[in-house]
């Protein structure tokens, strides 16, 4: 196995007062510059995994290693975008970002901090609103500030916890496009939780599929094989798009529930969850089991 930029090994979480772990034996890796999404139903422990990666929560077992060092506690190396933006309402937009920048570079002058912060706010299209208070902004704009704050500290890795969950579809689309542009320009390594299948296909290189908790597992890792320069407007013209989308929706609707009792679970190797490429229909997958091949074939025929 090659060395990943971030590797998660044997992660397990048991909440105090409960006996059954919410998840256990979770293994996956993220390479530098990769955008990884994680999809699963509520209660499968996605947010817990993200919080462990962020260092905000402790795992019951297992380790997370980033850039050769074990993750122990929060760090400026990992920027977090919170689900409900988590801006400080008593600070202006600029001050919110500057607060983060000053944390990373305490020796910088006020002017330099302001300039650096403004640069990142302009990047998310908020150059006009830097002196407003968060309460004066729309939900989408607040989340943009959250993103700018996370990018402004130039972390080695970005963690996004359903950043667009609370936004309406139109706003969500525009911010997704912006995030895509920024990530492509900066080659930022990203780990993101989402419930939105289209969002995952648009943004991710790999999508981790988790079965329902408790005892949630990584069922498979879906590689998004569509070209990286995809856009929201055009990606649905790619024949791969619907194959991938159907595969993901099918997983969420059908397979995630009864995975625990299925044949696939018996063959499941937690350390090497199967990697599938539903977008490339005809390609034979060396690491796929025959069972999986059959299943994928059937799906392709159905759709």
């Amino acid at each position, binding site marked *: 196995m090659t060395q990943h930029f971030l590797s998660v090994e044997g992660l397990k979480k048991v909440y105090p007062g409960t006996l059954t772990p919410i998840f256990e034996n979770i293994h996956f890796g993220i390479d530098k510059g990769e955008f990884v999404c994680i999809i699963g139903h509520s209660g499968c422990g996605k947010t817990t995994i993200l919080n462990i990666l962020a260092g*905000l929560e402790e795992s019951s077992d297992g380790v997370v290693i980033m850039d050769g060092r074990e993750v122990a506690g929060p*760090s400026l190396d990992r920027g977090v975008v919170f689900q409900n933006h988590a801006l*400080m309402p008593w600070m202006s937009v600029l001050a919110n970002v500057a607060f983060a920048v000053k944390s990373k570079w305490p020796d910088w002058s006020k002017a330099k901090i302001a300039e650096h912060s403004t640069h990142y706010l302009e990047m998310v299209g908020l150059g006009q609103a830097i002196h407003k208070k968060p309460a004066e902004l729309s939900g989408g704009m607040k989340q943009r500030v959250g993103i700018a704050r996370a990018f402004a500290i130039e972390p080695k890795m970005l963690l996004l916890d359903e950043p667009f969950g609370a936004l309406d579809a139109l706003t969500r689309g525009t911010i997704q496009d912006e995030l895509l542009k920024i990530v492509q320009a900066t080659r930022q390594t990203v780990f993101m939780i989402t419930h939105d299948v289209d969002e995952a296909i648009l943004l991710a290189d790999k999508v981790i599929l988790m079965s329902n908790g408790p005892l949630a597992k990584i069922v498979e890792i879906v590689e998004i094989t569509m070209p990286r320069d995809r856009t929201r407007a055009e990606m649905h013209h790619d024949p791969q798009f619907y194959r991938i989308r159907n595969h993901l929706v099918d997983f969420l609707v059908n397979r995630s529930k009864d995975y625990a009792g299925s044949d696939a679970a018996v063959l499941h190797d937690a350390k090497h969850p199967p990697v599938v490429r539903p977008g490339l229909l005809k390609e034979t997958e060396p690491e796929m089991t025959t069972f999986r091949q059959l299943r994928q074939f059937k799906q392709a025929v159905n759709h």
Partner: protein
Amino acid sequence: MFKPQGFQAALISLLLFLLFLGMWSLATFTREQATLSSVDAEYTVLMGKGAEKSSGFPTPSKVGEAFITYLSDPFYDNGPNDKGIGIQLAHSLGRVALGFLLAVIVALPLGFAIGMSPLLLQAFNPFIQILKPISPLAWMPIALYSLKDSDVSGIFVIFICSLWPMLINTAFGVASVRKDWINVARTLEVSPLRKAFQVILPAAAPTILTGMRISMGIAWLVIVAAEMLVGSIGIGYFVWNEWNNLALHNVIFAVVMIGFVGMILDQIFGVLQKFVTYRE
């Protein structure tokens, strides 16, 4: 929309006030007639006050006179028992300010520590629960005995009554700072001191100010009572002194002044509160 309504409200307020004055005049008028019975008249003469006819409940005009005499020269000083209302109020306010300030110095850091640590909260909780409901004046004998000084005792009573609302609100405000903001500070590796002053304090400030406002309200209630017991100067002592002089019109004047000063103090805190309140 607001303005005409404000005007109407002011008009009704004025009418209510005039109605009140009218009823007051009426009530004291009949009372004065009644007090002119022979026994009472004789008694007032015996008391050496017959000429003033002041034994009845004062009329509005009598109280109005008191307002004019005291407010026209609020800072005169004719010896220990005769000082202007401004000087009296200033002394009371000074005691309140000092006791309140001491309470702030203790309540804010302690409340912060208790709010941050569930362990400390649990450890301090029984003491707070027991000490909080004690009437501040019940401390007076203990304070007088141990502090030996009536002035210092008054300040101590203000301190002890201001302490609890501030302490409890600070602890509560600090403990209920949104987890998200704390997490932001944690992921940014913010130093504890910077976290305390730039995240927790502003986040908890509205709750803390509410506690201060309640404390100030209680302090102003308590100082009047405390000065009645121990004071040699101050608005509470003034009330007590005028009561002993049977100058009820002066007492009424002082009561109204106490109300006004209390209102102004409350409004100052209202403004401060608005200043630190944030909209989410």
